[in-house]
């Protein structure tokens, strides 16, 4: 069944249809939220908020347009709002996956360090670039769709993806050899 059909059923009160939509987009929504938020728990909370907000707003969804970008816009907004509130609270928390300075030779430790370095590189990017590169290279959205998600011109999306890729590649260059073994 198409996303738009499920959305219509969910809007009419069909819980199974809403469940199917959540199942289809859970991974995507959580990844986008994680790209914005430092804490995985916060990201899941934001993704959940987004799904519930989407459920309440299904009446405003245009079924002639793809459902994914519409939902991802809500996810991005929910994550951004939560991140803004965190900034207001000014709670500085050290991620448990902060790269360790100790040398750990085993593969698991190496993979954790690699993932941590990539996360650090991703979080060093401006929020909009993070979302743009994740939607483009991870989720396969087009520039046009991402422009709708972020509410910016397509040219801005192209620029964001370009700068994000360049920064990520530079940051990951030093991990090139280990990465080939561990990813």
């Amino acid at each position, binding site marked *: 069944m198409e996303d738009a059909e499920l959305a219509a059923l969910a809007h009419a*009160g069909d*819980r199974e249809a*809403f*469940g199917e939509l*959540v*199942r289809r987009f*859970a*991974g995507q929504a*959580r*990844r986008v939220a*994680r*790209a914005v938020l430092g804490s*995985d728990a916060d990201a*899941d909370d934001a*993704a*959940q908020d987004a*799904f*519930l907000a989407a*459920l*309440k707003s299904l009446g405003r969804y245009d079924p002639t347009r793809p459902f994914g970008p519409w939902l991802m816009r809500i996810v991005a907004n929910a994550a951004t709002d939560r991140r803004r509130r965190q900034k207001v609270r000014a709670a500085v928390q050290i991620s448990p996956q902060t790269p360790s300075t100790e040398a750990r030779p085993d593969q698991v430790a190496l993979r954790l360090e690699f*993932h941590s370095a*990539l*996360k650090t590189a*991703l979080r060093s990017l401006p929020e909009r670039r993070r979302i743009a*590169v*994740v939607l*483009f*290279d*991870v989720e*396969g959205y087009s*520039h046009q769709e991402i422009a709708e998600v972020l509410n910016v011109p397509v040219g801005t999306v*192209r620029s964001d*993806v*370009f*700068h994000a*890729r*360049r920064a*990520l*590649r530079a940051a*990951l260059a030093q991990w090139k050899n280990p*990465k080939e073994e561990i*990813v």
Partner: protein
Amino acid sequence: MRGSPFDHRQDRELGETLRAVLSAEDDTSFVERVLARAGELRHNVYGVEWWEVLSAWARPGLVAAAVGLIAGITFWFSGMSGSTESMVALGDPLLPAGESGLPSALFAASQPPDLNEVLALVMGN
């Protein structure tokens, strides 16, 4: 990864790497959590039927009615028990102790007082 960041196609290698970093381990429990929360918020999401509105108002309405009834009964009984005291209290400060200002015969008699007697008292005779 491709060499040029200008590439308009997806960079599969970068994409897969980011996916591995950002993906959560268990989507199933997340989905269950969202659906459970959606179930809790069902009334807000899908709207509330009229009988649910009435039933929601019924309990606080009954409580308010009970409280009002108890308050009314309390006020009624306290007014009845205090009415004699208040009448006495108004009269006492104006008169010497033991006098009511009217002949005791007017109150002690079992029959209504004679009209001439009442007029004589009023006119000072």
